[in-house]
């Protein structure tokens, strides 16, 4: 079957997003690979909402470039999205909500679909028009009606039989309209094999959901947070689930209290995580310094949104990397990881928790708005044999000699760089944790030599972590003979990789280096990669090129940069066209 990209646009509140979600789930259940992208307005009412779905029988790397199909609920959506439809693409619009626009591009095939009217006729109400749209699109995509009905039932079951019934009527009416009235062929004529076996083995979920599941899998049993777009869904998910796992969650008064409470729980021996976004991150800076200084395990998930300041809360940007790596007065080492897709949202949350525990250090996970709300169908996460670490605990039995004499040394300078930690309640384990510079016991100590020794203790962890992760700190793709290398991070990976593959189809050999560990950087591998290339391009969704700066500050390379700072993600075509320019002799 073909690679198809669909877009649905309408006003916030018209059901665009739920329309997209039902269609996505149905498509995935019908056996397609899927990849979604959405934008919300920042207001509760009004403003444009958009949902984009890409489907393919083969795995999908990115959200897609131009659309094969646009469904516009109203005139505003039509105007806004029309020009993104590919040459030969199709536009369905609701003639009752749109003008018959004479300016429709010649190359576009436009079809009036009176969604409101169809729905009204079928259900005596217009509220289900988005479900009618699902019916139309499911038909065009070749998704069996029964699969969509199944999804629909689950979606609406909580609202009662009546609502479910209404929606099925709306759906069927749309489906039938497409069959009977739409003078366009199915976009996808290949029969879909809804392979049961394979479906059981896959999960359909978003980045935010995967982070929350990762936290549960890693043994996180405490969460404190304060609502903030686009991180709230992680907190809401954990609010429902943590108590079911014997864990604790508190919605607190602000982000300072959120990280503070997590610090308390971590001090008390419980794995803790707090999800937030830029403005919240800004408030957590002082406490991040304390976590680093007091050597506590802690995971902070920063779902980046478009900044600076309040910025564009519902839009995506990779703007917090410098802050994550360096954003504390004084020098407080921390680890920064960035997942590239939904699956890594899970695996890296587990890794973040593991590293925090083993190295007693704050770990920041950098997701972003586009990844947070992106739905993918992924291989089911393996829980059995999942590597889950826990801090090395101090007990009377692993007391060493010096402890006998002078008491427990919480910050003992050990060969492994790690000092075993006593959990409150442990016999003879009491000690002082403090944000002041201190000696091995945790007593304040301002002597020059202690300060230096403790700096080494704290910073050496970064080196150990770089070594510990080794090759798993990055992903690299190097076709034979490639002399141009792209470096990217976070949610852009698939888009970049798609561009690289498209370039390869055009006989341009491009290499790709994608670190998941951003602080410390996998310097050796990065250097090796850089050395093999004639040209390097760092691709980032921000204005200043934060990864480029971070790399340059540590390695002797001078990359080109491709930045996009517009609140919307790159498309692979944009990257491809840059590649072409660079590759031109």
């Amino acid at each position: 079957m073909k690679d198809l990209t669909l877009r649905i646009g309408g006003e916030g509140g018209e059901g665009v997003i739920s329309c997209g979600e039902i269609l996505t789930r149905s498509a995935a259940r019908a056996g397609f690979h899927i990849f979604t992208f959405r934008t919300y307005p920042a207001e509760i009412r009004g403003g444009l909402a958009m949902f984009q779905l890409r489907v393919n029988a083969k795995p999908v790397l990115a959200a897609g470039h131009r659309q094969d199909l646009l469904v516009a609920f109203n005139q505003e959506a039509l105007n806004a999205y029309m020009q993104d439809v590919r040459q030969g693409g199709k536009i369905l619009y609701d003639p009752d909500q749109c003008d018959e626009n004479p300016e429709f591009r010649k190359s576009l095939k436009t079809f009036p679909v009176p969604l409101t009217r169809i729905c009204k006729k079928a259900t005596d109400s217009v509220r289900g028009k988005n479900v009618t749209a699902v019916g139309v699109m499911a038909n065009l995509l070749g998704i069996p009606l029964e699969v969509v009905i199944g999804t629909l039932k689950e979606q609406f079951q909580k609202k009662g039989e009546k609502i479910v019934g209404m929606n099925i009527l709306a759906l069927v009416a749309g489906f039938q309209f497409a069959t009977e009235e739409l003078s366009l062929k199915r976009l996808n004529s290949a029969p879909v094999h809804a392979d049961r076996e394979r479906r059981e083995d896959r999960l359909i979920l978003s980045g935010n959901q995967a982070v929350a599941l990762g936290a549960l899998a890693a043994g996180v049993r405490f969460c404190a947070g304060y609502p903030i777009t686009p991180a709230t869904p992680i907190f809401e998910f954990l609010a429902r689930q943590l108590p079911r796992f014997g864990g604790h969650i508190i919605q607190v008064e602000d982000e300072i209290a959120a990280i503070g409470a997590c610090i308390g729980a971590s001090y008390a021996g419980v794995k803790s995580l707090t999800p937030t976004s830029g403005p919240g991150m800004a408030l957590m800076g002082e406490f991040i310094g304390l976590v680093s200084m007091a050597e506590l395990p802690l995971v902070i998930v920063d779902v980046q949104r478009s900044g600076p300041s309040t910025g564009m809360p519902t839009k995506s940007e990779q703007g917090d990397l410098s802050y994550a790596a360096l954003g504390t007065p004084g020098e407080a080492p921390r680890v920064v990881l960035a997942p590239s897709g939904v699956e890594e949202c899970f695996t890296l949350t587990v890794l973040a928790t593991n590293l925090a525990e083993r190295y007693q250090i704050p770990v920041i996970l950098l997701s972003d708005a586009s990844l947070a709300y992106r739905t993918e169908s992924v291989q089911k996460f393996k829980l059995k044999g999942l590597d889950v670490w826990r801090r090395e605990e101090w007990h009377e039995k692993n007391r060493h000699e010096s402890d006998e004499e002078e008491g427990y040394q919480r910050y003992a300078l050990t060969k492994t760089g790690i000092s075993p930690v006593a959990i409150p309640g442990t016999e003879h384990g009491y000690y002082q944790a403090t944000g002041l510079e201190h000696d091995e016991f945790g007593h304040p100590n301002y002597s020059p030599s202690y300060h230096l020794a403790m700096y080494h203790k704290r910073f050496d962890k970064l080196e150990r972590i770089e070594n510990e992760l080794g090759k798993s700190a990055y992903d690299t793709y190097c076709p034979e003979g490639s002399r141009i290398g792209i470096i990217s991070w976070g949610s852009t990976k698939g888009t970049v990789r798609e561009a690289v593959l498209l370039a390869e189809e055009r006989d341009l050999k491009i290499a790709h280096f994608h670190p998941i560990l951003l602080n410390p950087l996998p310097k050796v591998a990065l250097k090796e990669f850089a050395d093999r290339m004639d040209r390097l391009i760092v691709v980032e969704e921000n204005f200043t090129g934060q990864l480029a700066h971070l790399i340059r500050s540590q390695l002797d390379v001078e990359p080109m940069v491709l930045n996009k700072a517009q609140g919307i993600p790159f498309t692979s075509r944009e990257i491809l066209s840059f590649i072409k320019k660079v590759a031109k002799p």
Partner: protein
Amino acid sequence: MSTKRIRENQYEALPSDKPERLKRKRNEKTATTPQKTGETLRAKTRSGKKDADAKAAEAATPGLLPKDYKSGVKPVWCPGCGHYGSLSAFFKGLSENGIDPKDLVIISGIGCSGRFSHFVKGYGFHVLHGRVLPVAQGICASTRGLLVCGVSGDGDALAIGGGHLPHAARRNPNMVYMILDNSIYGLTKGQFSPTTRQDTVTTTSPFGVTEKRLDPLSLLLGYDASFVARGFSANNNQLATIMTEAIRHPGFAVVHVLSPCVTFNRQVTYDFLHANCKELPPDYDPSNKVNAFTYAQDPDKIYTGIFYRENRPTLQNYHDNAIQCARKTAHAGDLEHLLSTFK
């Protein structure tokens, strides 16, 4: 490395969903002199866990005297500082309640008062300026069987930390919170604080303080705190009694301690406080909030004693109940099943 899961007792639900206060036999006698430690009081650990109680009785450690709670680190306070008296009254409260130092966690803020935790035998965490309550609540929520005590100065608690106080009061974590109030910023050498009296000249108020003084008790009553008391570090017996009761109170017990700074505050001195403090009348009823507010607002006298106390479910109770309910739902704790719902 080990893949050991989090310690079970860290997050396991309590066996009963009854609020702690209903399970615990409150000790009705108001503790008198701090000397009365030993045998009879030993088993009265604060922990609401029945098994913890049992364990404590079993362990039969000899009752600790107030001095046994000294950490061995010599206080760095000025001679005569009110914080010494606050510390010793706290030691008495610990002793009266037979607290085992291994179960004691002190969270302190930044300030002269913030050094408190270093001087007490027990787990200590000297956090950031103004952030005692968030950290303490994280510990309260996630553990059981510990006595969690927070210590702040007036600046720490009411200026930079003032935003956390109403929310701690609402959540009612089972903990003690001491505000050592010297009406001055001690550690930074003498700037006015939220409780400094109007017109006082300090290094940052050369023309006199113009802000109205905050009264911690009035606002705590407005926040619905479940235990609100005030003591004076030089009225050490009363303060020790208050500390003892605060430790015993199942919920958020705030003790506002008048704890003079002899170096930077020439206004709120021992003499001033001796002249102006007055114990609440013997027949005072601490269950009447409006009455408590009236006493707190008294324009002449600074009353000391337990202004208000109320037993209601704690943060810990609520969490335990939530976990117990949630644990009963289908497939609770089954991550494999949870994954399988994403299809």
